[in-house]
C-alpha cells in the first residue's frame, strides 16, 4: 500500500494507517535528524514531535507534494526551531562512539578520523548547501523534492549540491 492509499485510509478513520506511515519513515527520518543535530536522544524526541505534528496536520494535507516531502519539511522546520533554542552543536556524539565489531580497529580509527574531518567540513557549509547534500545523498531525493522541502527551485537545489561538493573537496583535499 503506498502513502497516498494510507493517507486516504487514515482520513476514513483507520488510525492504524498512520502507524504504518510511522513504521515506514521513523528510522530514516530519525537518522536524518540525527545527522543535523548529532544527538541521538534529541533526534528521537524531535522525530516523534514531527510525527505528532504530521498526525495533527494530516487531515488538512492537500497531497500537493508527496507525504515524504511534506514530512521532511515539517522535520526541517522542527529542527530549525530546536537549533534556534539550543546551544552550539554537542561535541560528543553517542553514535560516533559505537564501533563496528566486525571492523579491524586500525581501519576503524582511520575511517573514524576521516568521517570526523568530513563532518567538521560539512558543519562549515552554509545550511542550505549542507541540507541539500544530505537530502540528496542519504534520502535519495530528486532536486524537485529537495526544492519543495527547502524552498526554491530544482535548478537552485542542483547549484547548491554542486557548491557543497566543490566546497567539501576544497576543504578536505584528497581523502585517500
Amino acid at each position: 500500500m503506498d502513502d497516498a492509499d494510507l493517507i486516504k485510509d487514515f482520513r476514513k478513520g483507520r488510525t492504524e494507517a498512520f502507524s504504518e506511515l510511522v513504521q515506514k519513515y521513523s528510522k530514516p527520518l530519525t537518522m536524518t535528524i540525527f545527522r543535523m543535530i548529532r544527538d541521538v536522544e534529541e533526534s528521537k524526541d524531535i522525530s516523534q514531535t514531527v510525527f505528532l505534528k504530521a498526525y495533527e496536520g494530516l487531515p488538512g494535507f492537500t497531497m500537493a507534494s508527496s507525504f515524504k516531502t511534506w514530512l521532511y519539511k515539517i522535520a526541517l522546520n522542527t529542527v530549525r526551531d530546536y537549533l534556534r533554542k539550543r546551544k552550539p552543536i554537542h561535541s560528543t556524539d553517542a553514535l560516533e562512539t559505537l564501533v563496528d565489531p566486525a571492523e579491524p580497529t586500525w581501519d576503524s580509527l582511520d575511517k573514524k578520523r576521516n568521517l570526523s574531518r568530513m563532518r567538521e567540513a560539512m558543519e562549515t557549509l552554509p545550511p542550505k548547501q549542507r541540507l541539500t547534500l544530505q537530502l540528496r545523498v542519504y534520502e535519495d531525493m530528486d532536486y524537485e523534492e529537495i526544492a519543495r522541502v527547502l524552498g526554491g527551485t530544482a535548478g537552485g537545489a542542483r547549484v547548491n549540491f554542486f557548491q557543497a561538493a566543490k566546497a567539501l573537496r576544497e576543504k578536505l583535499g584528497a581523502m585517500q
Partner: protein
Amino acid sequence: MKKLDCNDVERIMVTDLDEGLDLDSKELLEAHLQACPPCMRIREEFQSLFSAVAADVPPDPGELFWRRYDSTLASALHKKRHAARWRDSRWKAAGVLLAAVIAFVAVFSVYDVRKVTRAPGGDTSELVFQELNNLYGPSPEEVVPALSDSTMLAEIRIPQGDDAMMDWFDAEDESGQFWLL
C-alpha cells in the same frame, strides 16, 4: 569533436557522479580527463568525497531504542487521539447547547411580541388604525359629522347594544327631534 574547458569540467564531473551523463557528454568528459591529469585528479577527489559522504551512515541505535521510540510515540498519539475525541465531543455538546439556547430565545421572543401586540388599547387592528390616524389624521368617514346631519350621526354613532337603541328611540319620541345620547 567539441572540447571541454577545465572550468566547465568540474560541474560536469559532479553531475556524472551524482545523476550520470548522457553518452555524448560522458564521452566528451572522458576524452578531456584522459588528456588533462589535473582534472583527472579532481575527479578522483570527488569520487573519494562522494564515497566518504555515502559511507557516513550512523550505526543503528539498537532494538531497545526503537522499541522505546515506538512505545512513547504510540502513547503520545493515543493521548492526542483521546484529546481530539474529547475536544470534538465538547464542541458537539456546545453546539447542542447553543441550538437549545437559540430555540429557547426564539420561542420566548415570539411569545413576547404577541404579548406586546395585545397590549392595553385593544387588538392589533386598533393599534394600526391609531398609528395611521397619528400619521395621516382620521379618514373622511371617521370625521364626526355636524349635529344637523342626523342621518349620518345615526349611522356613525352606532349604539353599543339593544338598550342603547331603545334609549335613542325614546329620546326621539320625547323631544320630537334627533338627539345625541
